[in-house]
């Protein structure tokens, strides 16, 4: 077998191995990415599933216990809302009225148990309505 073919074979092996590693990583870590409304529409089907849910922290619903690293709030969408209890390191700028993405799982139809909250980055490019 010529050098070029051997190298092509090696590159092919690397490509196949990469695809396998990527697929196994995806299979182990995939989770739904839903808005609050989508989550509530599909709640019966996805209870217990891992998910990232995107919504707005409802007004006058945020309770933060920084000592316990615990946050409770209602995440609102356009039509629906869901209670969130989140533990773990909380972002400093978590506040009511802020768009957030909560990573966790749907414990029951009306409760998301989160372990990570991602907020709008401080640095970037004004959100809708600000410009």
């Amino acid at each position, binding site marked *: 077998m*010529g*050098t*070029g073919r*051997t*190298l092509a074979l*090696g*590159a092919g092996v*690397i*490509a196949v*191995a*990469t695809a396998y*590693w*990527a697929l*196994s*990583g*995806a299979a*182990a*870590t*995939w*989770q*739904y*990415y*839903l808005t609050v409304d*989508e989550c509530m529409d599909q709640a019966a089907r996805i209870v217990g599933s891992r998910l*990232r849910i*995107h919504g707005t922290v409802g007004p006058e619903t945020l309770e933060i216990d*920084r*000592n*316990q*690293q615990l946050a409770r709030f209602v995440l609102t969408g356009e039509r629906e809302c869901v209670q969130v209890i989140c533990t773990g*390191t909380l*972002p*400093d*700028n978590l*506040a009511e009225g802020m*768009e957030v*993405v909560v990573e966790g799982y749907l414990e029951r139809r009306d409760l998301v148990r989160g372990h990570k909250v*991602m*907020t*709008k*980055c*401080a*640095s*970037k*490019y*004004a*959100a*809708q309505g*600000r*410009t």
Partner: protein
Amino acid sequence: MILLGHVFLLIALIAAGYASFTSFAGAQAFRSGKSTATVPSVVAAVLALTVVLVVLSAALLTQDFRFAYVAEYASGELPWHYALSALWVGQAGSLLLWTWLSGLVALAYLIHARHDAAAMRLRTTGVLMAYVCLLTAIMVFAADPTRASLTASAEGIGLSPLLLHPAMLIHPPIIFLGYAAWGVPCALALVALADPRGKADWLPRARAWTLLAWVVLGLGIILGGHWAYQELGWGGYWAWDPVENGSLIPWLTGTALVHCLMAWQYRGMLKRLTLGLAIATFTLCNLATFLTRSGMFSSLHAFSRSPVGWAFLATTMCLSIAGAGAIASRWAQFRPERAIGSLWSREALVVLASCGLVLLSCVTLVGTFMAPLSGLLGGHTVVVGPAYFNNVLTPIGLLLLCTSGATPLLRWGRAPSRRQVRLLAVSLCAGLAAALAAGLSGERNSVVLTVLGCAAFAASALGAAVWLDARRHGAPLPAAFAAVVRLRRPQYAGYVMHLGFASLAVGIAGSSLGTVRDVVTIRAGESLTWSGYTVQLAAIRSYDAGERLIGDIQLDIARNGRQVATLYPAQHFHRRQNEWTTEVAVHSTWLRDVYTILHGVTDGQRAELTLVINPLVRWIWVGGWIFLLAAGVRLWPAATASRAGRLARARPKFLKHTRPNVQRRLQYK
């Protein structure tokens, strides 16, 4: 001032468009010996953009709240340097900075390439100025940085406290400079594709600009990681966030491009891949901008919803289609001139490494776009976690580390000589010895051991290559070292960059796989033993610092009975923004960082905090410094006429000890 900004923005738009037109027209005119108006129009566009930039900067520094942008991002409380940094915090300001940098890059290219063929120089400038014109048009029609505020206000909203960090003063401009610089290799590749003769005279110019863009973007990414590590307070520096990935992907394809350009220049190979990578890298920079500015991705960095992002998606698609079409239409013209010399030649490793880098880029791209892709293909929108990326990064990273380590002892077009094979074996033994030593000292993670072994292999291979060159030189060793390093400065700078990569890999492996993390509660005056350290809570304090209310604790950190650091993790309350920030405190050594995060204090007596041991993190930042220094050495202009004369006179003195065939080898670059 607002009117001045408006007028000069329009002048910049017209001048950039005219510069692009005159560049292309000038390329035709040069064939018939006519002159061109390219240089004045490029200068005019850059000057007009400079005026707009100065106007906005002055408005930020003087808190001129008549500007809507100033009212949104400045405040009277900001120190001047952070007030100026508001320039690149918002959509319109950052676009202005990027446009200005793109104009400067076009001008710098025009000066740098003044001795190149006129047609190539002018066409490339035409492409670059067309891009500047596009960016300026986006500002004029969708994100005007000089827009007047609709309401009169005496004070602005100001910056988020998280941005008040030195890294944020330079991280965004460096990223934008990197994006702007990637435009040159892309423009050169497009011009090369348009040339029916398919000449390779663009390669030296493309190599210099590719390396510059690669180092600048890499440095920007590392600085962003450093900011996240110090300021975001979660203990890490990389979260596989879509926007982070957006800048990483072009850096990965750019790394492949740096090496493919060499394969083309020295062996006439990988031409289509090189052209494709040059266009793809700049295209991916536009895609990264789409990620940040479209509002499509909910990431740590980007929540905006604006039409600006979609303009960049359109640019991405146009560049992709144009690039793919041009390469397909010239497919036969860019066939390789030579076959791969040996499986153990440099070009073979370049092929393998490029394959790994392109695959890694593809995997990262798919992971980043998983949500819209899965929505389109499967109906359910899903995303993937860090394990998806890490699963691929680890083996490909190890492949890259091995290939980059072996490079100094391999040759273009041929298998290594017997002496090189012996030195490769010695370097391999050094790598095994390092891994064994780390294993004996308690490290049990196989990936960390492999990375350490590969890094030691890379370092010893570099040392062996320098030693071999010096031996071939024949002069006494110190003089021979100096001579070969001087003669082969660009080549050695490249090898040193491989060492920087090894340092980066050691840092990433150590900090990813060896982290220890615990949440603890300590009473004032008490101490606890944790991961070999004694942590004592010496004091709890709270005090008023004007705009901020600060609560911090004093932690005395001791190891083996000896105090090694006093740390002050804190929580700041920013009155203006009504926002808390966590200020971490880090004790950094070459082996590990002790990273402390204060969550709060209860009853004035008990502090709740997270303690993290992050092994080898410092090596990541060291890797960044090595990249920077090596790139500086590599890009430093070649000998001036007078120095070249001195070198030429000195050369026979060194080379008189050297055998003729060795003289040829020393000069083969």
